[in-house]
């Protein structure tokens, strides 16, 4: 009896600690999203004033306008390409992180890995402007090495966006891959090799399948970040790249069509949600198969 009262008192203490955070998130994370969804069903008049009536018009416009379908396709394409490049580059980086014996060297790799994460996105993006500009570092080096005759125009293109995206998001792919790689028992690889499989075969039959969950969770983060950022494409890609986050930014800040910006936002959120759910589903199926 006394015991249950004590337990109840402890529990109410925990709830007391949790409630302020819940109220905060309810007010400034859940509520704004509900308001945004409601807004996306509002009608606007010819002066873009929001009317109190409801409509599917914004969504019909998104999904029947060729330009917006192109934007959706290229957003998914760019995010997917960024994800694939990140995963491929993350693999050797994670390998170095896991296989380095010396703790000092490992810490050094860690610092190289997380320092981009700790530097503001405007700074990293600014760095890419300095590097990729017509009179920038990369062109200067290539010209000096006589690899090119004319400076390449790299800035203000989707190429620049993808390069900057990859650098910014790569650590998010390396960390989960390194974690899952570090969890593999060395015995498994030794067993595979002692059974006659070469290193390459062992990699494809043992290491790769076991690190797939890490790759997938890295892919989910990279994909959602790449599909939703607007600062980087705005600064290195120019304002005209066909990307959903840029379109949302323009509709809200330049056109002032808030209901349409809201409908585009909900669309982006749904697309990202679907891809992440898909990745989660594949990951679950794969883990179930591994443990069979």
């Amino acid at each position: 009896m006394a015991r249950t009262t004590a337990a109840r008192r402890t529990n109410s203490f925990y709830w007391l600690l949790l409630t302020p955070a819940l109220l905060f998130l309810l007010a400034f994370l859940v509520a704004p999203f509900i308001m945004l969804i409601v807004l996306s069903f509002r009608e606007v008049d010819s002066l873009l004033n929001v009317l109190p009536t409801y409509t599917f018009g914004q969504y019909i416009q998104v999904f029947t306008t060729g330009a917006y379908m192109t934007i959706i396709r290229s957003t998914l394409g760019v995010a997917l390409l960024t994800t694939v490049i990140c995963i491929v580059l993350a693999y050797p980086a994670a390998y170095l992180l896991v296989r380095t014996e010396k703790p000092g060297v490992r810490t050094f790799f860690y610092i190289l890995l997380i320092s981009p994460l700790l530097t503001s996105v405007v700074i990293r993006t600014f760095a890419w402007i300095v590097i990729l500009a017509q009179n920038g570092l990369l062109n200067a080096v290539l010209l000096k090495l006589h690899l090119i005759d004319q400076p390449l125009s790299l800035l203000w293109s989707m190429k620049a966006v993808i390069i900057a995206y990859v650098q910014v998001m790569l650590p998010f792919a390396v960390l989960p891959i390194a974690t899952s790689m570090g969890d593999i028992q060395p015995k498994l690889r030794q067993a595979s090799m002692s059974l006659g499989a070469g290193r390459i075969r062992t990699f494809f039959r043992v290491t790769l399948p076991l690190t797939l969950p890490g790759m997938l969770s890295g892919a989910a983060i990279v994909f959602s970040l790449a599909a939703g950022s607007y600062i980087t494409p705005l600064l290195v890609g120019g304002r005209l790249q066909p990307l959903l986050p840029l379109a949302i930014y323009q509709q809200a800040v330049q056109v002032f069509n808030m209901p349409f910006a809201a409908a585009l936002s909900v669309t982006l959120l749904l697309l990202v949600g679907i891809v992440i759910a898909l990745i989660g589903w594949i990951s679950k199926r794969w883990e179930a198969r591994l443990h069979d």
Partner: protein
Amino acid sequence: MNKAGRPSQRKRKISVLTTLIWAAGILVYLFLISPILVIFLSAFSPTEYPQFPPTSFSVRWFHSLFTNSDWASALKVSGLLLLIVTPLTVILGTAAAYALGRLKFRGREAIQSLMLSPLMIPQVVLGIALLYEFTSLGLINSLAGLVIGHMVVAFPYVVRTVSVSVSGLDPKLESASMSLGAGRLKTFVRITIPLIKPGIIAGTVFSIVESFGEVSISLFVSSPGNITVPVRIFNYIDQTFDPSVNAISVLFIGVAVLAIVIMEKTVGLTKVM
């Protein structure tokens, strides 16, 4: 000859493969760090535009940071925000992460996902949603709007790092304290907080770094009177750029280095990520 040759051939093949992987890995790390190096080194160039490598050494652009009133006022806003946002977020996040780690109820995982969701939600969408809400509430163009926006972004980092510390905390230590007569609150302050301190420190560092560098939300909810440093950098490089941006970047890189040192000294880098 065949019998003797095979193992050594295989060994050579392995070392070639390993060398290739190492070379690829080192190239990847170089790619990761090169933008920061470029920014850092060209901040010391005396020319009107960022020059790399700088032909001579100058600190004139650092000087301009403190003489130009726009940079100074942006630094003031960013600093003020840190002073408000960091303690609020750390207290809110620590309490929530600890309570969530101890409570068992249905829907616990859903709440945990909700708490971490700002990490995954497209920043532009979060920015628009908060812009719209603040406009309706009359919070737009206020410092309060910026504070709330920064807290939403920094909150999940605190929750994540503190949760790791909480999951490694033995509840018996708290029971012992309470059986010796300390109340729930006293136990929390005297026993629990010191034990999860590494997580709280890492969370604080992350919160500071996130809030100091945040631009995606701030761009939507800040007003001309309340411009943070990253927003000012954004406006600046959107139009033109000179090495004063590099100089301010060096300040940011300094904060990042400090953050790394603090995390390595307190919790160890491998544990916080």
